[in-house]
């Protein structure tokens, strides 16, 4: 455990020197998004194809408030977290009534519903053009318009959310969610209200997604329509699976791989998503635990 934390802290310090600070910032934002998804996917065993709903809703609401009322950054974060949790409560309530394929399709369908609402509501969201002009107001004399300062801020929030997620999954709730993943029938038989716990996973995951959404909007100064679209929902699933959904750190590694590849390769090679496709096929066929499992196998081989 300690080793992972040290490695992560070193990465946080070094990353902005390896890639552009904006990309480094995006990596940790996406990692937060992945942490939220993984509570559902990895811990509860629920494949949600609608995480962008919470990410995008939070980005729009907080972005709007930042743009028109110039609210405090921390307040914007709090609003985003709340909107993420609330929208997840709504969507989750409907989705947990069903399981399996129907569950997945419901998360997807409701995501589409939110997407088209944003698409049509141009007076607020800007529709296809997105919602531009989102400021990054300074906080306590910290000038967030400097990329590296904003990077430090995002890193701190990311580490804080990782700590919170670690506490949650090591607490009884984490174990109960995993019990539901392992055997839903038995979990109910020993006394857990399964749909309610699934809903809790949704709400917590939504809160993380919401916080990430706000940071994303402030990073790029815009909420693009894609931020609430299903491709975005798919990307976070993709990244998490590549990193390894069985572990707390999987989505973080997945985010590093995914964002770094997409940002660095997209300028060199237009067909770069092929690389992701190949990586995904390898993971599905040979490495169900993603990069994390590859690492474990490698270190066992060395030992």
């Amino acid at each position, binding site marked *: 455990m300690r080793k992972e934390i040290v490695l992560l802290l070193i990465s946080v310090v070094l990353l902005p020197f390896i890639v552009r600070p904006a990309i480094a910032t995006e990596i940790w934002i996406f990692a937060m998004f992945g942490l939220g998804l993984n509570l559902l996917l990895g811990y509860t065993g629920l494949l949600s194809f609608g995480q962008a709903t919470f990410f995008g809703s939070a980005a729009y609401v907080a972005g709007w408030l930042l743009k028109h009322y110039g609210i405090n950054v921390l307040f914007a974060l709090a609003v985003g977290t709340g909107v993420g949790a609330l929208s997840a409560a709504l969507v989750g309530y409907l989705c947990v009534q069903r399981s399996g394929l129907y569950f997945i399709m419901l998360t997807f369908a409701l995501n589409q519903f939110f997407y088209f609402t944003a698409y049509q509501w141009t007076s607020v969201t800007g529709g296809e053009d997105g919602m531009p002009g989102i400021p990054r107001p300074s906080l306590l004399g910290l000038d967030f318009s400097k990329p590296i300062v904003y990077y430090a801020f995002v890193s701190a929030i990311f580490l804080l959310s990782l700590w919170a997620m670690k*506490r949650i999954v090591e*607490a*009884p709730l*984490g174990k109960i969610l995993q019990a539901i993943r392992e*055997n839903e029938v038995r979990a*109910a*038989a*020993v006394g*857990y209200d399964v749909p309610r716990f699934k809903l809790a996973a949704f709400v917590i995951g939504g809160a993380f997604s919401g916080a990430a959404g706000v940071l994303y909007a402030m990073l790029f100064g815009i909420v693009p329509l894609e931020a609430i679209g299903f491709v975005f929902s798919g990307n976070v699933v993709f990244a998490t699976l590549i990193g390894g959904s069985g572990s707390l750190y999987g989505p973080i590694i997945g985010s590093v791989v995914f964002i770094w590849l997409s940002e660095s390769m997209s300028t060199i090679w237009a067909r770069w998503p092929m690389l992701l496709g190949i990586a995904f096929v390898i993971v599905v066929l040979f490495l169900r635990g993603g990069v994390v499992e590859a690492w474990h196998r490698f270190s066992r081989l060395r030992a």
Partner: protein
Amino acid sequence: MASLLKTESLSKSFGALAAVAGVSLSIEEGSLHSIIGPNGAGKTTLFNLLTGTFPPTSGEIFLGNQRITGTPAHQVAHLGLARSYQRTTVFPAFSLLDNVWTAAFATRRDWKGLLFKKSSSYDDVQERARQALGDVGLAEKQNHLAREISHGEQRQLELAIALAAAPRVLLLDEPAAGLSPEETRRMVELVRSLKGRYTIVLIEHKMDIIMRVSDRISVMHFGRLIAEGTPAEIQANADVRRAYLGGMAA
């Protein structure tokens, strides 16, 4: 002694099939009450009704003086009814300790710290979990994963999960299913050792087990109760013999 678990004309139909038909049963507190019957007699369906897996079509269920008909499964567990399954139903990727921990935590009176307190820091739950594993003789394997132990041990774990909930009534659905003669013998000893500590309702096929451990036996056939009595009475009952012989010949 007073009856602890009681049903009144309990019925469950799946379409045209009456899986359980008008079963009135009374389980005395502290007794070991077995339910036998040929395959498809409705025994497991009866358990599913008692534990709230699905609601009955008609009839009532009482636990003590409380009417529990239609109470969903997760609430039934909190009322003190715990069950084991005929087909092993554990948490495969969990350690044995985590398996029973999960059951022990569920019936804790309050869930304080659900979100942020370390699972391992609940001393009472930990203690109860170890106790349950000890009771079934799996204490030494507490850190093994449930999917890596033998089938016989999984059957024991199945029982431990039910015990960890500290139930008032223990419903055991064929605890010896698929066990070797040696494992069966151990399971019988185990069930016997639990006798008196819990009120036990036992479904079993193996007649020799039933006759040795039961206080009372109810016989089901095509969803109905056709006989009830002490092991000696049941053995002498002509209807029971016919049901069993008929069941085998069919």
